[in-house]
């Protein structure tokens, strides 16, 4: 046989290349969900380029991106809006995927990096490097180191691995509170000019993302997002419990480390770019799972939903009270708070967790 084979079962399509070197199982609903989310991201990005205090027609925006528009349009589209949109999409995707990784690893819908203090830790590291006057790459590295310190503290303080995941999450909340306080103190005691820059960063803002930072983040995410996607196979086994995953052939120590480091890396890059933005990592995986169907937290759909959610929040924050702007982080936190209450309510009522 020399042609790819497409088999059909009630729930999925199977695509097989000759000699079965490649065989994939595709669920139509999950595929449609990813396509739909990607299309929505695209439409929203075009909209975000054109609307605002200076309205720009899509045609002008396209010309500006090619460098053929008038200077003021060029400034608004290329200097102001495009980096902000790219930043929102990248940060949202990174947070969405990090959320799916950690929520699967901790097998708890609350086990997301913003809840367990990893983003506060990453922000602490990045903040210190920034105040010390480090360059973009070093700030990113310091953010990752800060995330690692928070991760190590949470794991170390919550006791042995079999001590229970709820304990780990509670420890994470405490560690996160500690880092948030530390960050506030650092911002307060910094020199006035750095403190002002840090203060808007600390709220989780996408305004004024520099091209240099965007390039560093894009490069890192180009590595981290595919690495995250490659964790998907092991995650399907880890969902069944640590013992079961080990007996299905997953080397648990390595797999745990890979998931955690990839998730921390994604969180650190997102924080480096936009500051600690809460609730995207918490909500995106659960929302994506509901849209894509199935029993697992889908990595790609989580990333796409995160991107759409953050870009949507940023556009809304920019337009709702224009010319006043609300930082995207404040908006995601507002929406996230409502989601949190709904989640707790559904668990209280004995509904399905998550």
């Amino acid at each position, binding site marked *: 046989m020399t042609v790819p084979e497409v088999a059909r079962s009630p729930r999925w399509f199977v695509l*097989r290349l000759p000699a079965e070197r490649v065989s994939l199982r595709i669920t139509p609903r999950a595929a449609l969900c990813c396509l739909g989310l990607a299309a929505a991201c695209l439409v929203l990005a075009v909209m975000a380029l054109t609307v605002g205090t200076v309205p720009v027609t899509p045609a002008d925006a396209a010309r500006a991106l090619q460098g053929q528009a008038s200077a003021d349009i060029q400034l608004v589209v290329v200097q102001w809006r495009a980096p902000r949109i790219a930043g929102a999409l990248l940060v949202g995707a990174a947070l969405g995927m990090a959320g799916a990784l950690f929520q699967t690893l901790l097998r708890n819908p609350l086990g997301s990096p913003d809840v367990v203090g990893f983003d506060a830790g990453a922000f602490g590291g990045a903040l210190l490097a920034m105040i010390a006057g480090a360059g973009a790459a070093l700030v990113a590295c310091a953010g990752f180191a800060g995330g690692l310190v928070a991760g190590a503290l949470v794991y170390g303080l919550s006791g042995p691995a079999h001590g229970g995941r709820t304990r780990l999450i509670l420890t994470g909340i405490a560690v996160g509170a500690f880092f948030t306080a530390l960050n506030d103190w650092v911002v307060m005691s910094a020199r006035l000019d750095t403190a002002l820059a840090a203060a808007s960063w600390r709220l989780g803002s996408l305004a004024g993302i520099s091209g240099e930072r965007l390039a560093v983040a894009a490069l890192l995410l180009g590595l981290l997002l595919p690495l995250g996607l490659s964790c998907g196979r092991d995650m399907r086994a880890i969902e069944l419990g640590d013992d079961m995953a*080990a007996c299905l052939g997953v080397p648990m120590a390595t797999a745990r480390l890979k998931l955690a480091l990839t998730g921390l890396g994604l969180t650190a890059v997102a924080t480096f770019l936009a500051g600690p933005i809460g609730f995207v990592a918490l909500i995106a995986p659960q929302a994506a799972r509901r849209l894509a169907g199935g029993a697992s937290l889908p990595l790609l759909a989580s990333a796409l939903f995160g991107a759409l959610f953050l870009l949507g929040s940023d556009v809304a924050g920019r337009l709702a009270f224009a010319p006043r702007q609300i930082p995207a982080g404040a908006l995601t936190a507002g929406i996230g708070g409502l989601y949190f209450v709904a989640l707790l309510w559904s668990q209280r009522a004995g509904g399905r967790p998550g």
Partner: protein
Amino acid sequence: MQMPAPAMEVRALTAGHGVRPVLDGVDVRFPRGGFSIIIGPNASGKSTLLRCLAGLVRPIAGEVRIDGEDLAGLDRRALARRLGLLPQQTEIPDGITTAELVGRGRHPHQSLLRRWSRGDEAAVAAAMAATRTTGLAERPVQELSGGQRQRVSIAMALAQETDILLLDEPTTYLDIAHQIEVLDLCVELNRRGKTLIAALHDLNLACRYATHLVAMRQGGIEDMGAPAAIVTESLVERVFGIGCLVLPDPTTGRPMVIPRGAARP
């Protein structure tokens, strides 16, 4: 007499956590093609022994061998193609269907690009047929009864296509009818050539179904062999600390244990 090579074997095995090891210098052979059942009171080390066999607990001293090979030298994926485990409780993801869950048993045979081969499809179909769960394929596992769910878990372990299957208390939480159903299914699988090693609470069910019994007490082996050869009033007294009568089971002729206790007619 030449003994056939055992499917699994532990030698001078010491294992556990903390200062006092749970298992202390244990030697056991699990015959190939047998249905071995480990019995013993709570905290006698049954579960730790089973977890050592599965490679989930690393021995402090001694070794675990599978087909004569040291378990410590095998990576998890290679081991997962030779040995499956039915844990006491499987975590079942919300909303997963039977077909999907059974399919996850194929994990050690798949890779990043080979995710659903014809072999995978055939193994899952065969596993579901053997456990009579084909009709449940599209049902969410969480809506199934305890007995059905246990059959689905066994189907997942079968889809893994290993020669050896470990079962940790496979009848816990099941009523008597489903206990019998699950153990009958085990016998059927055993007759088709699978080597089974189980830990079981119920002494009488163990006597009735095992081809090979391993009796444990306080982290050591008290006795092992065919039920008819080893189960006596004295063994039950030593292992469980209860007085009893051992009579031949009228249906199978195997030993049947009747505790004396304080009950009177």
